[in-house]
């Protein structure tokens, strides 16, 4: 996991926190990361030091000192307060389960769409190669035609071949950008769904 991935996962676990606090936490960790890098730590060592993003988020949310210790309600706490807390936890669990179901329902149509986009991007990649090869084929067959039969038809074939090769060459960067955009879109869609699923999974 890279630091950016760690940070994004921390952020997704802090969705219940006000935005100003989220910014402060992320700035805190960005500073801590930069300081440790300056001190010579590797990215991997720093992330190991920070611990799991979920656990870091829990400490921030609940001010835990040790990861494994949950502060029990004090014995003097009135029954109504602990009942209210239980109701809140049950409500949160119900909404989390609901969100997970929604997430899965979104994934079901998303997978074939993603597959179609992947196939389309592969086809797009083939197009410029096909144009160049086809154009070269046209060009050489035009040359052969010129020597064998001569005439305007041969010249047209040579010209068309050159044109196809030219278009194919122009298409390369265009197709590359388009395919990159498609893959980014697919990645973003899956990331959004996975954050929804993973972020809520922890609190169930």
């Amino acid at each position, binding site marked *: 996991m890279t630091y950016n991935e760690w940070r994004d996962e921390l952020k997704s676990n802090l969705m219940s926190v006000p935005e100003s606090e989220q910014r402060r936490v992320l700035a*805190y*960790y960005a*500073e*801590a990361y930069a300081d440790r890098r300056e001190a010579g730590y590797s990215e991997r060592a720093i992330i190991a030091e920070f611990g799991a993003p979920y656990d*870091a988020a829990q*400490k921030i949310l609940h001010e835990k000192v040790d990861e494994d210790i949950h502060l029990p309600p004090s014995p003097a706490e009135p029954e109504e307060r602990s009942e209210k807390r239980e109701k809140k936890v049950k409500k949160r669990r119900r909404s989390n389960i609901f969100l997970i179901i929604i997430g899965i329902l979104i994934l079901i149509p998303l997978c074939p769409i993603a597959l179609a986009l992947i196939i389309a991007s592969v086809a797009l990649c083939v197009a410029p190669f096909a144009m160049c090869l086809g154009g070269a084929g046209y060009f050489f067959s035009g040359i052969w035609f010129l020597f064998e039969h001569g005439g305007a038809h041969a010249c047209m074939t040579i010209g068309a071949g050159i044109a196809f090769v030219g278009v194919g060459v122009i298409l390369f960067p265009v197709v590359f950008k388009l395919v990159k955009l498609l893959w980014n879109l697919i990645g973003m869609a899956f990331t959004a769904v996975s954050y929804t699923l993973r972020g809520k999974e922890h609190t169930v």
Partner: protein
Amino acid sequence: MDVQLKKGVLDLCVLHAIRKNESYGYRIISDLQGIMDISESTLYPILKRLEASGYLTTRTAEHNGRLRRYYKITRDGLKKLESGKKDLLEIHSIYKKLFGDRL
């Protein structure tokens, strides 16, 4: 260590680390190494709690082209540190009376 006790001790450790000069997150952790080993994840809520209680103030300054937050102890923080020190001495004295020099 008991959670509440550990919280109190960690607060004192952090205040001790910034008692003479203002400091920053990683520096505080480094200074406390060997006394109480804490991570950034543990330190953040401590700093937040101490600031909310008025025991330290913060400021942001530029360092090597990025921003860094510095923490400085306040007068209330120094008083808290002093009273915390007395508490620890009292605990130490009680421990000695109970257990002597045995560990």
